[in-house]
């Protein structure tokens, strides 16, 4: 035995021999949770993940991640009502992350740089007919094509895009953006037959030899309400007005235009009327602003452009140059009731924006297919009562937005794909939500949201130039970096830093961390100090058993 110094009997040892992990009653575990933005996205985008790429300036990867769910980012970055931002946890810190503006930046960047996606070279041999080339139809076609199926789109109009072209005004969605994104989908090898109205779906399916059909005809017929009108009163509907902007040329509206209705279409119609030269555009709506179905931002932009709002009013009679309006009152249930008080409103024309119906004449001969209140009834997988016929977008009961339609297209494509393979589509279990209380917001730098520049007001009421402008690169990058990455590790090293026992191992970029259970005492500091709530503490198995 080696001679030791005086009074020393043991060799020097390291505390590494002391496995303090035995003290533990709880252990930390890395988890992924569902960020509220992803949860709220009707198109099912993995927003948190594409922001993760955008944060590092890798816009192409961000765009490719986005394109896994949504083939129309530049469109969506303009017209989506961004429920993601409403749900965003950052609202509780300062303002929501400008997800929509970053999406637009990525979409525009992709167009500018000509990024494309590729369809698989081998096809499944299955053929799918998509009826309608609006957002639902385009989205379904895109996803079906990526899944290897042959896709034909039939469109009744002369140009593709559905309501994105014939309903949404140019000042919100420039047509070169729409065309670029549609062209990219078509380049995947989708067959597009324009000016081809399908009269009977079963015949079309049989004659074309299609294995499945996706119905996405939208809701393109303006609802008419009966308004007693003099012979020379000028009454038209908002859908026709907006549609005519794309073809035969705008109708004559006069200088004073009343728009009847309180939805987004009413706002579009009123703003379009302003741009066509109406000095006075008035929205007549029977309830109050807070009960308007139109989105706040649309109402605000309309007000900015000088559109007037006449709340609690119904049109009782229309004559040449003037309307008779009845004042309404909300009863205790919030329903408007007539008061018997009347007034006159000067108006050269009335535009009805009272909702839209679908043209379902192509479904006449499909007995299994159920229609309720003018909407096609579908099961969870968007299949109608008829095997192999699916439906989505504005023609099925759901919120009628581009984003919902894009989501329907994706969902239908996945179910159609499963149907064609004789399987059922299993989306898998969703992660538990990453709610704000799971975060440690202390760690997020103070960074108020960036504001998108807007066209000057004078040009907004005289031209159809785009109102809301895009973010430049550095602002988009800043905005992306405001993301708090709720519920998903973004490698901030905080767990690795705050462990008093060095019991967290850093595995390198992209690989995350793991816990050294030999030494982890289960104090829970890593979980408490994780900014984004990506660590949970779970009880140890009862070691006495």
């Amino acid at each position, binding site marked *: 035995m080696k001679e030791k110094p005086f009074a020393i009997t043991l060799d020097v*040892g390291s505390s590494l021999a002391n496995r303090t992990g035995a003290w533990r009653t709880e252990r930390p575990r890395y988890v992924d949770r569902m960020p509220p933005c992803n949860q709220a996205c009707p198109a099912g985008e993995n927003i948190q993940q594409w922001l993760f790429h955008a944060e590092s300036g890798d816009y192409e990867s961000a765009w490719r991640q986005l394109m896994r769910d949504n083939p129309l980012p530049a469109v969506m970055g303009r017209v989506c009502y961004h429920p993601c931002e409403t749900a965003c946890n950052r609202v509780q810190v300062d303002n929501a992350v400008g997800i929509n503006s970053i999406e637009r930046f990525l979409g525009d960047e992709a167009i500018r740089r000509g990024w494309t996606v590729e369809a698989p070279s081998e096809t499944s041999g299955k053929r799918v007919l998509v009826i309608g080339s609006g957002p639902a139809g385009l989205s379904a076609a895109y996803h079906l094509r990526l899944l290897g199926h042959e896709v034909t789109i039939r469109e009744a109009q002369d140009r593709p895009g559905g309501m994105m072209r014939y309903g949404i005004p140019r000042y919100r969605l420039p047509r070169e953006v729409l065309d670029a994104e549609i062209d990219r989908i078509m380049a995947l090898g989708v067959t597009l037959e324009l000016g081809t109205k399908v009269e009977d779906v079963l015949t079309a399916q049989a004659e074309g030899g299609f294995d499945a059909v996706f119905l996405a005809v939208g809701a393109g017929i303006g609802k008419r309400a009966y308004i007693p009108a003099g012979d020379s009163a000028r009454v038209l509907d908002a859908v026709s007005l907006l549609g005519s902007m794309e073809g035969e040329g705008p109708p004559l509206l006069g200088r004073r235009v009343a728009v009847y209705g309180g939805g987004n279409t009413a706002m579009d119609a009123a703003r379009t009327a302003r741009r066509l030269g109406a000095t006075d555009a008035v929205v007549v709506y029977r309830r109050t602003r807070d009960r308007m179905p139109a989105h706040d931002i649309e109402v605000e932009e309309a007000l900015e452009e000088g559109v007037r709002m006449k709340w609690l009013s119904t049109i009782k009679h229309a004559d040449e140059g003037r309307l008779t309006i009845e004042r309404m009152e909300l009863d205790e249930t919030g329903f408007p009731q007539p008061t018997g008080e009347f007034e006159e409103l000067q108006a050269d024309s009335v535009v009805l924006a009272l909702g839209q119906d679908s043209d379902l004449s192509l479904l006449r001969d499909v007995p299994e297919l159920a229609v309720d209140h003018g909407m096609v009834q579908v099961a969870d997988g968007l299949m109608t009562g008829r095997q192999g016929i699916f439906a989505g977008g504005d023609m099925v009961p759901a919120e009628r937005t581009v984003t919902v339609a894009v989501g329907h297209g994706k969902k239908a494509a996945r179910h159609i794909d499963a149907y064609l393979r004789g399987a059922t589509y299993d989306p898998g279990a969703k992660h538990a939500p990453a709610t704000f209380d799971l975060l440690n917001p202390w760690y997020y730098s103070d960074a108020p949201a960036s504001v998108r520049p807007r066209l000057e007001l004078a040009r907004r009421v005289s031209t159809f130039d785009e109102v809301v402008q895009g973010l430049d690169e550095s602002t988009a990058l800043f905005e992306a970096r405001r993301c708090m990455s709720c519920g998903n590790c973004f490698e901030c090293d905080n767990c690795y830093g705050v462990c008093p026992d*060095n019991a967290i191992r850093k595995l390198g970029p992209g690989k995350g961390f793991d816990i050294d259970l030999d030494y982890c005492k289960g104090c*829970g500091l890593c979980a408490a100090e994780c900014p984004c709530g990506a660590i949970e503490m779970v009880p140890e198995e009862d070691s006495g058993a």
Partner: protein
Amino acid sequence: MTAAREVRFYQVGSFAAGNRLLGPELQSEQAHPGRSNALTCGHRACQGCGEALGARYALDAAQRAAGGKVIAVNATGCLEVFSTPYPETSWQLPWLHSLFGNAPAVAAGVAAALRAKGRTDVRVVGQGGDGGTVDIGLGCLSGMFERNDDVLYVCYDNEAYMNTGVQRSGATPPTTRTATTQAVGEVPGAPFGQGKSLPLIAMAHEIPYVATATVAGLRDLEAKVHRAMGMRGARYLHVLVPCPLGWGTASHDTVRIARLAEQTGLFPVFEATGGVVTDVTPIRRRVPVEEYLRPQKRYAHLFRPELRTDVIARLQRTADRNIARFGLLAQEEASS
């Protein structure tokens, strides 16, 4: 303005340990896979020990600044006991322990020996808890200061003698319940009007550098160690390290409690050179002292059986005085 505050507009760049978007030079030392881990795994500190965390933060940063050439001298206390039960050690650097009260003198001796050997490359860090520093070792420490010995002395302040069973020290704040200041009487817990601020005592020695920090401000703490290691002579760093056992807090709350101490103003974070305060870390989200006191069992008597608003108000005045004295509110908040 510290470097820690210059990194902006990254998700957590300014506050968390690291950030995948920042270059290595802008990451904290604790984010580096190759950090020296001066105090390694297997030590016997309690779950969530603030002192173990603070010691690793400070020594890793010191080793980084000195190219790994650091000798540590330790006073008696928890830090010494939990890290070196014979014959094991958790220290991955040369480390000495002598007595409870003489660590500053031993550190001064090591520095003198190194000077005699011409080893200017090897640096000395003395360290101890608040008992060993502000009470028992104060004479030795004051001597080290007035001689301006080339030592960085770090005090890990957990506001009582935790190792021996939570007895009051000179750093125990008023109203705190300890084994020797029970929660009885008109003003329960440690009395008002007693105790001392060692950072201010150190400043009175007009030594080159004095600073305070907490385990909630990792980047701030590291920046201060770096600044101190860039100087010669006597330097003093006072780090607030919550003690889950002695304070009666949850083990996962150690960093949160330190943060609250900072954000209430009860623990002012500042730095001083030559006896003059040169910079403060402003309060980012000001909170009333009650939020700091309530989660700690050592202050439970202020809330049960009755809410002692009078005592809490007195503690709030202490915090307010710190805020005014050190200018702890950022400019815009102070003026609003």
